[in-house]
């Protein structure tokens, strides 16, 4: 809290929009956020859910056809064995990373402003990981044999190959999904208790009651609770870094030019956070408006998120630059050919579009006018959403389609079933988002109570 001894720097901070609008108390915060759930369902929600369910229908049809015919319905071929499935897997899992960054890393850094967006971002993480998980499983071809990936005793006495990054991925993504769900649930417990105590309908109240596990808000309980939250944040922080690092190992441990580089782990992690913040911005801009939550998700949040996006975007661009530099500096003709092929080959449009989206479009975020404009931010974030998908397309497809021997070169395009599965997972994601915002508090109520001026005052007095 800035005080009378404010330095010029602190005065500048005062000019920034607050993280919560003036005049709120624990009671008003509780009312406003739980009203989203306890009030009558708004009409647009049905429209939104209906639209999401129809996209989910596309997913069902695409997967049904895939299971009926086999992976041949996709565009994958020799030499491009990894098509949309892997592109989409990496894209989705990257989107999830912002959620963990917001909930864990910003918590350890005691960034109060995260309290308004962490719940939603964590939910986004879980839904994005669910969408991501679909792709490697479908890519197996015989998805019903997925348990071969798991280290479970079986009658064939087979065990996974633990030297393979693909099995590391299974462990990393499974751990990530489970820890994200745990973290999310622990954060929800006090809010589920609030809903239990506010819901008029007894049956619904008992569902929230069961989920709240008898939470009473005892000071002794809060103490253990906060210790547990700090541990989860401390554990999730290295975990989130490890997950995209392991995803990048899937590529980097291969010998293919364009994949076999040591810059991949940091560059993938930065790209993941970059993509994830873009998605958080894309989703919060309409939602805060529709639910009238501008008091809690203020322009300060938008500004901060835009800054994180700009910073991570620059790291990603640095990654691109290092790739180019190493191609030249290594003296390897295959690496050099890979770069020239990306820029001038048959997929050059994807590469230029990628530079436009991830490099040029993001530079607008240097301007505080763009960061302060919802329209501007929304446009930039959409560019990044597309750009990060293109980045994975460029990495997967342009590296694979022309490797060492011209005799084994080929071309790749996604078929209608590739697109159907991809758009279908967007449907799955949006369906989960719509159900979440209706039945669970999309802003952490108890953490908002912690940052209202009234509770800040208590801190000052003692």
């Amino acid at each position, binding site marked *: 809290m800035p005080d009378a001894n404010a330095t010029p720097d602190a005065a500048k901070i005062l000019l920034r929009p607050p993280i919560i609008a003036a005049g709120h108390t624990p009671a008003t915060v509780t009312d406003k956020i739980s009203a989203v759930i306890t009030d009558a369902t708004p009409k647009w929600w049905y429209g939104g859910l209906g639209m999401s369910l129809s996209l989910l229908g596309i997913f069902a049809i695409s997967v049904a056809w895939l299971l009926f015919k086999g992976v041949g319905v996709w565009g994958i071929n020799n030499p491009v064995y990894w098509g949309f499935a892997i592109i989409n897997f990496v894209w989705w899992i990257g989107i999830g990373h912002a959620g963990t960054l917001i909930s864990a890393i910003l918590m350890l850094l005691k960034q109060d402003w995260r309290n308004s967006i962490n719940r939603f971002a964590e939910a986004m993480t879980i839904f994005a990981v669910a969408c991501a998980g679909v792709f490697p499983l479908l890519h197996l071809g015989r998805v019903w044999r997925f348990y071969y990936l798991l280290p479970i005793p079986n009658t064939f006495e087979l*065990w996974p190959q*633990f030297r393979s990054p693909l099995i590391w991925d299974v462990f990393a993504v499974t751990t990530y999904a*489970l820890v994200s769900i745990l973290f999310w649930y*622990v954060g929800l417990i006090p809010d589920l208790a609030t809903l239990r105590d506010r819901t008029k309908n007894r049956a619904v109240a008992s569902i929230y009651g069961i989920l709240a596990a008898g939470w009473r808000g005892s000071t002794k309980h809060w*103490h253990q*609770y906060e210790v547990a939250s700090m541990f*989860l944040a401390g554990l999730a922080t290295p*975990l989130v870094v490890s997950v995209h690092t392991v995803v990048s190992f899937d590529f980097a441990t291969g010998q293919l030019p364009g994949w076999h580089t040591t810059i991949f782990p940091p560059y993938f992690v930065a790209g993941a956070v970059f993509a994830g913040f873009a998605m958080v911005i894309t989703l919060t801009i309409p939602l805060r408006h529709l639910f009238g939550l501008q008091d809690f998700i203020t322009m300060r949040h938008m500004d901060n998120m835009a800054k994180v996006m700009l910073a991570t975007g620059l790291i990603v661009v640095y990654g691109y630059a290092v790739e180019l530099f190493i191609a030249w500096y290594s003296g390897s003709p295959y690496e050099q050919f890979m770069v020239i092929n990306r820029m001038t080959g048959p997929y050059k449009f994807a590469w230029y579009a990628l530079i436009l989206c991830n490099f040029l479009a993001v530079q607008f975020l240097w301007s505080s006018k763009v960061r302060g404009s919802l329209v501007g931010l929304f446009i930039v974030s959409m560019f990044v959403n597309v750009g990060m998908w293109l980045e994975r397309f460029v990495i997967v497809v342009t590296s694979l389609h022309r490797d060492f021997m011209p005799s084994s070169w080929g071309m790749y395009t996604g078929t209608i079933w590739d697109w159907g599965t991809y758009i279908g997972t967007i449907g799955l994601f949006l369906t989960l988002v719509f159900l979440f915002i209706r039945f669970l508090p999309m802003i952490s109520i*108890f953490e908002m109570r912690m940052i209202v001026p009234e509770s800040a005052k208590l801190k000052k007095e003692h």
Partner: protein
Amino acid sequence: MARQAKLCGLLAEFEDPALVVEAIHRTREEGYSEFDTYSPYPIEEFADAQDVHHSRLPLIVLGGGITGALTGWALQFITSTQVYPMNIGGRPYNSWPAFIVVIFECTILFAAFAAVFGMLALNGLPRPHHPLFNVPGFKRASQDRYFLYIESGDPNFDAGRTRDFMSGLGASEVSNVED
């Protein structure tokens, strides 16, 4: 058959958290030990006043992490060298550097489970029923009110005297907690 209601303690409701901090100090001076406070969000000052600082959770999490690391290592070591040795490009069966990732992930996974279930166990949750839930006003403990609960099990507890004491703390209401 109606059950005889048993007095479990007294519950005082406060509107101002600063009063509760004061009340905790007074309650301790008065010699009560079986009491607790309730708030809609974690308040450090309450924990300080009640002297709630210790937690066994860190040890539980450490135990979970060590168990996870050993499990991850044993899983890979035993399957790769004993149960199902595979010669991959002449690399050693015990390729420990390649095992680090899975050991790391198992460490995090087990430690996170230990943190969550350890927290619930230390708090005695899940507990669907508690006498406090019989007090209608207690619903606001999860919203915007602060509560002090003195249990009847406290050696100093006396229904009349304790009620008078609690009323003098600035509480807006003092109710019986019955089960």
